[in-house]
């Protein structure tokens, strides 16, 4: 009786620890978001040239929906610039999709030395973010895609450097 109780308690606690560990450490590795809409999307870049996101497929992609009117969006951009510089050679590619006015985005990108492609959209970009899992229409909203184009992480709010590196390091 006591032995059986002990075994059951052990199994239960092990299960608890396993689930807790997964919830705490695995923002990536599982996502039901389908990135096919994002990869197929074509939006103008800062020069007004249409760019299809799938042209960057094969990289580990960090697709960031943002706007210049959104303070938490601006908070994480220096992290993206730094990681693009440090890890771009390993196949990490940031892509920004700004839901904003072109002039504002161009000025912000210039002032802040954004070193990765930025596309600009309005209603089309809003709808695109919703098809990519952003049902609440919140910004910033960031997807991490592996080299095959599968979404491995979706995140609302500003990402810290530590959290982002933890996600992408396994994919590079």
């Amino acid at each position: 009786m006591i032995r059986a109780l002990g075994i059951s308690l052990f199994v239960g606690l092990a299960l608890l620890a396993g689930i807790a560990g997964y919830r705490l450490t695995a923002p990536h590795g599982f996502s039901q978001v389908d990135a096919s809409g994002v990869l197929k999307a074509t939006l103008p870049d800062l020069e007004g040239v249409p760019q299809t996101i799938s042209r960057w497929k094969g990289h580990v992609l960090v697709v960031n929906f943002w706007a210049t009117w959104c303070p938490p969006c601006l908070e994480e951009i220096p992290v993206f610039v730094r990681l693009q510089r440090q890890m771009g050679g390993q196949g990490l590619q940031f892509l920004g999709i700004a839901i904003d006015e072109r002039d504002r985005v161009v000025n912000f990108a210039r002032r802040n030395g954004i070193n990765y492609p930025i596309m600009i959209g309005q209603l089309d970009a809003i709808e695109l973010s919703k098809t990519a899992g952003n049902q609440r229409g919140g910004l910033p909203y960031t997807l991490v895609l592996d080299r095959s184009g599968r979404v491995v992480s979706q995140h609302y709010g500003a990402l810290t450097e530590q959290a982002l590196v933890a996600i992408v390091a396994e994919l590079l």
Partner: protein
Amino acid sequence: MRWIFPASALSVRRYLPIYYLGRDMIMLTRWLVGVLLVVVSALPSHADGDFLEPEQAFRFSAKLSSGGVLEVRYLIADGYYMYRDRFLFDVEPGTVVLGAARFPPGQWHEDEFFGRSEIFRGDVTIEIPIVSGMEHGQTIRLVAISQGCADAGICYLPTTQTMDLMLLGSFGATTEER
């Protein structure tokens, strides 16, 4: 999914502790499952589903008061705020002319990127007088655009909400939200 076991597999149950211990074991199992559910649900999740829908975070209503003044009200959930300079109000048809919106005093919000911005929290009512172009019995459509953020670090896309308002009698109104 429905699991179908071959008959021989069912004999496995006699090796399970629960088979030996009967009611005590069932109680213990229930307790463990309960603890599991409570603890796991309390853990931080990376699914990021903790933010309210914008319609719940910024609950919109409007009425047309006596004197022909539009009263637009937002009930802002705790932990959320709206920017004063991002409200935009219009009415259809365009022949109805609105005066300047009257805002209550807001709070000052410090931000490293935008400096000081005036924001609203809690319960805010904005008054917009109808200056001309509206007749008794006429229905107008109020179009309200607003934008807000959560303290937890996201901002919502600008939201457009509409409400049809009918001016009845001498400046009393019924409202119907669309």
